[in-house]
């Protein structure tokens, strides 16, 4: 097959659309910003760098990723561990989080972003191998699989909570949840576990709102630790900090109304609007129509990746795709959700659109995996599961 046939053109055009949206949105955001740096140019640079990485990653076959997975995962764990013990000179505490390595000449990198990719690679391998070894599934074997998946996921989460970076840790849970569903674990296990998590979460949430005394008394948790939840529910009462961010975001998006104020027409000043709150800028300037369009592009991306997974004839590739889908979904849902008061505020960027080096590169690497899956899908035209284009 020719390169043209093997290359995933649809994915390419979806990424091109996201790239364009990103540049436009960041350009708008920095108009009302206190920074003088030109983040659009820098974002373009990151995209170019990312393209090279994707090109390189595309050449590697999925089976090779599978073989490498434990090594990169191990290396990633070591880096995360190093971050915990590193001195402030190379791992400074920024905004109360010790999440970045300061590399002279390169800038700052956030290892936990890249670790997401490595975790996806290992989780996929664990699932494939487990299913291969246990052809006759029982509840017991499924339970063992569940334990393995959790083990692989919670190891980096523990280290990330040391930073502490609650938002990124949640992303790992998102990836894990997606993979558990498709790993073939019986519903007899999934439903009670998800139900239990839901019930515990719901109870804590109820206590936070209705009876914080109980939490303080029995769990030793102070009220301020739920600040972001209070700020989410009653932003006008907690106007300093997160409440302020939410109010500004709601004002910006809300006032965009149906069609927006037009490119460059933003009036509301939102701190950090070029990173985590980029969607507020889109919502304000391009309105409901523009915001839905962006969500639609993400949906197309996810639809495409799911199709890729379903058509993959190598099960490892399918799981990797699902991992990527789970990660992107979680990011998109959490980020957009927090700007419209659907979810509490956490520091998670909007993938491919928010400005940010590590996060963008890691997400592009995830897309690189998808390109590789497509590129090495040699027999997909003849596969027994071929859904006709």
């Amino acid at each position, binding site marked *: 097959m020719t390169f043209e046939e093997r290359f995933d053109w649809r994915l390419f055009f979806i990424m091109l659309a996201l790239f364009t949206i990103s540049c436009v949105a960041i350009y708008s955001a920095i108009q*009302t*910003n*206190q920074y*003088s*740096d030109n983040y659009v140019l820098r974002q373009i640079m990151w995209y170019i760098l990312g393209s090279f990485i994707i090109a390189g990653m595309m050449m590697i076959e999925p089976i090779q990723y599978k073989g490498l997975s434990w090594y990169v995962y191990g290396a990633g764990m070591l880096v995360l561990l190093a971050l915990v013990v590193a001195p402030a000179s190379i791992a400074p505490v920024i905004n109360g989080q010790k999440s970045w390595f300061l590399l002279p000449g390169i800038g700052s990198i956030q290892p936990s972003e890249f670790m997401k990719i490595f975790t996806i690679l290992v989780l996929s391998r664990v699932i494939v191998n487990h*299913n*291969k070894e246990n*052809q006759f599934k029982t509840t017991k074997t499924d339970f063992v699989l569940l334990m393995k998946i959790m083990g692989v996921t919670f190891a980096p989460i523990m280290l990330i909570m040391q930073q502490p970076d609650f938002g990124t840790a949640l992303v790992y849970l998102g990836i894990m949840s*997606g993979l558990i*569903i*498709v*790993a*073939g674990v019986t519903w007899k296990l999934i439903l009670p576990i998800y139900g239990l998590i839901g019930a515990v979460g719901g109870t804590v949430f109820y206590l936070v709102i209705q009876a914080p005394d109980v939490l303080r008394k029995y769990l030793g948790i102070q009220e301020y630790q739920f600040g972001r939840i209070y700020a989410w529910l009653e932003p006008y009462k907690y106007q300093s900090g997160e409440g302020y961010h939410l109010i500004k975001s*709601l*004002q*910006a*998006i*809300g*006032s*965009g*109304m*149906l069609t927006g104020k037009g490119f460059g027409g933003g*009036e*509301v*000043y939102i701190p950090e609007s070029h990173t985590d709150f980029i969607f507020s800028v889109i*919502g304000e300037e391009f*309105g*409901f129509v523009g*915001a*839905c369009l962006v*969500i639609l592009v*993400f*949906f197309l991306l*996810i*639809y495409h990746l*799911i199709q890729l*997974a*379903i058509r993959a*004839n190598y*099960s490892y590739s*399918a799981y990797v795709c*699902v991992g990527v*889908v*789970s990660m992107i*979904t979680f990011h*998109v*849902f959490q980020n*957009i*959700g927090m700007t*419209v*008061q*659907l979810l509490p505020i956490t520091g998670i960027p909007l993938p491919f659109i928010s400005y940010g080096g590590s996060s963008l590169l890691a997400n592009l690497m995830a897309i690189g995996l998808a390109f590789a899956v497509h590129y090495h899908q040699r027999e997909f035209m003849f596969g027994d*599961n071929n859904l006709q284009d």
Partner: protein
Amino acid sequence: MGKNKKKKSHLPLRMNILFFVIFLLFASLILQLGVVQILYGEDAQEEINRTENTTIHTPVPRGKMFDRYGRVIVDNEPLYSITYTPPKGVQPMDRLALAEDLAEFISMGDEEELKKIVRERDLKEYFYLLNEEEVRERVSQEETEDLSGGEEYQLMLDRITEEEIDSIPFEKYQLIAIKKELDQASALAPHIIKNEDITIEEYASVAEHLNQLPGINVTSDWNRKYPYEGTFRNYIGSITNAEQGIPRANQDYYLSLDYSRNDRVGKSGLEEKYESILRGSKEKIRYETDKRNNIVNTEVVREGSRGDDLVLSIDIELQQQVDEIVKKRLKEEIARQPYKNRFLEDAMVVMMDPNTGEVLAVSGMYYNRDRESGEPEVVDHSYKAIQAQHLPGSTVKGATVLMALQEGVMKPGETIYDRTLRIKGTKDKSSYRNLGPVSDVTALQKSSNVYMFLAGIRIGGDTYIPNEPLGFKSGTYEKFLYYFNQFGLGVSTGIDMPSEAVGVVGQNPGPGTQIDLLIGQYNSYTTMQLAQYVSTIANDGYRVRPHLVKEIREPSNDTEQLGPVRENINTTVLNRIEMDQEYIDRVKLGFQYVFQKQGGTAYGSYNDVDYSPAGKTGTAENIVVEEGINGEKELIDTENLTMVGYAPHDNPEVAFSVVVPNVGKGVSSSINKDITKDILDAYFELKKERSEKGIEDVNENLNEEEAEVSDNYEE
């Protein structure tokens, strides 16, 4: 391939389930977007329009305080500042232009100060701004390739030569110094450009030209100033500073009254008590700003007004003299007998108008023995006059005699024989010496304890039989307290201060101790309570509320003139004692004899004065615990020397109480009498001077009104 088949069996289904979940999540996002943008979009836009209208509360000065003759005791001293609040995205050239404009109105210092403020780097930055193109060319592309923006800028500054800096004329230093301050401001946060040594002219000219000076604002704040320095400060109290703001404990209370968190409020004394009057109402201005934060419209929502002024009842001149007298007498007494007087450290005085309750002076001096860090020898502790409680001694006998007469256990003129009483179970009880026959009047004159004891025993329903124990009917002690309370002894005086002590009242003692109360040897009272007690007798039985504030006046623009009276603090009669006028007259006669008749305990010193004092002396035995070097404890007898009274006896215009606790026993001190003589002399001397020369520094208007007010009260 077989393995793949197995995988395929669950994968597509599960993936479709996952995809369906994702679809639901995205659908909820769009739904919520619809709610935010379409349902509530209009509201959000309105909110933006609204919040861009900022309402600013400008603080107004607090009300001042004056003494009873209109002399300023607490004043305000304005503090001006000029601030800069940069809008977003302001460029260095904008700031330079602003600095040029500002330099027309304000000065950052004289020649020498400017040379200190303006550093080489400031000059280089200024030069760079003016010659940006040229300086840029001095740095080549290759050199800047690896440099960050900041490093590149530094490199370009380095290329500016000494000669170029020197070419900047000195006239420009003013604006460079201003620009330096402007550069330090961060977006949307006010930065103080100048706040010390701002002249009124600078302030006014900047204020006038605010519309030409984007981001510049002028604010004014006030500091309290005390022309009489420490005098009466214990009662004036203090206010919080802007950092402390409103007290955290009562935050909600203050916020509900439209205070801001950094507002300064009274935290003690009159400043706290009269906070609502002194605070004034803040000026409320609404600024309408466009989205670049430029002010497009200002509207005064509410004119502010300074807080109302307080005219105190205090005579500051008398206050100063009384402070001096107490200080001098305390120091002298301690110097006279330093060892025996080693527990003597306080002396307190209250002087008030017995008819109106207006407090004229209140003093309390503390002798500071522990002076390591160069603290003064005598410190103003006048708060103790309402906070410290001491055994009053015989001064309360007026109340006892009135009770006895009212209860009918003693008849006016009835004589008892003063001798040592021997009661089983208690120590022998006697007067300071056996006084022989005494009546109600002479019992006061000579300070008979035995008369008081016998009266108490009769009220208790018992009869004195030597060497027998006492047995009182129930409710006797309560009856004693009830009568004493009518004079304010053991209850709040109602003085207009945030807090006062109400005396120490013992619980249910035995009869032998109960009658000690009647000679002031059991319950303790404050100096203010004693002053209220004696005033009650002086004005024929009306217990009036002592107060420090006489009038509330509207602020006046004229600094020389007091504003119109908003409210007169009238005399408040708390209660009328139950005793008949005839009995009160007997006690007043007794009080008069104390000072004016041979054998009176305060007789002798007042032959040469014409103000005809009356009152009662007191000596209470007070035991102090002394701790030895090795921690062993020893009980030492000391005496509280006290005095209450008023003058003139037939038409009292001033009442007083003096309390000097813990004078050494056996030092034959007369400090209570000495202080009394001195303060009465001072009062009547001042009165005489004023009738001849008028009051210094006194506002004419006030004088007349003052006279009128006094007349009203005479009735």
